């Protein structure tokens, strides 16, 4: 199933979708959106690429193995970023007590732990959607 219009459109659109997803993840504490929304948009771009070209082109962007490792690894990184609060004298997921730098309010790097946690959450959601799609396409294994 090869369609020139679908291929050209997705080739043009996918970089913008990915930049938009990263923007929403990074600005999660300032504007609507955050890790889940941005990760879903980023993962949708990966799935769109694999569906409009073929599975090999999508696998070139992010392979099944890499997606699985990112999915598990970002969950562990989320856990460690939260545990930093416990190690440096505070509660789990502590922000200021854990020593995360807090910048000026309203600036991009102004949220300390929230920025780190949102970033890992976005990676987790995006790679989960990619893994879901690869599992459906490849069948049971």
């Amino acid at each position: 199933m090869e369609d020139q219009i679908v291929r050209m459109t997705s080739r043009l659109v996918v970089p913008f979708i990915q930049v938009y997803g990263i923007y929403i993840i990074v600005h999660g504490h300032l504007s609507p959106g955050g890790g889940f929304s941005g990760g879903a948009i980023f993962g949708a771009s990966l799935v769109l690429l694999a569906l409009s070209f073929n599975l090999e082109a999508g696998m070139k962007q992010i392979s099944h193995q890499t997606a699985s490792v990112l999915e598990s690894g970002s969950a562990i990184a989320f856990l460690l970023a939260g545990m930093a609060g416990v190690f440096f004298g505070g509660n789990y997921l502590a922000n200021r007590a854990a020593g995360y730098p807090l910048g000026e309010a309203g600036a991009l790097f102004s949220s300390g732990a929230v920025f780190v946690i949102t970033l890992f959450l976005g990676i987790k959601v995006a790679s989960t959607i990619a893994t879901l799609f690869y599992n459906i396409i490849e069948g049971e294994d």
Partner: protein
Amino acid sequence: MIEILNALLLLFLVVCAIGVAYIRDLLSAVILFSAFGLIMAIIWQQLSAPDVAMVEAALGTGVASLLMIAAISKTKRAE
């Protein structure tokens, strides 16, 4: 004025939902379902929930229909 827009959106939502249930071609049903998701995203925005609207537009319209198209490509298109 805004009430007319909301009423039109809700009417289109109901028409899309009934159409998804009645249409025979599965690919057309998926496209109609993604139209349903898009209208639903605008309605979430009208209900002052931009966060939910963003997730609905990305997951309900994008990923869900892509996954269903993948499932159709593995099976048959007719019901």
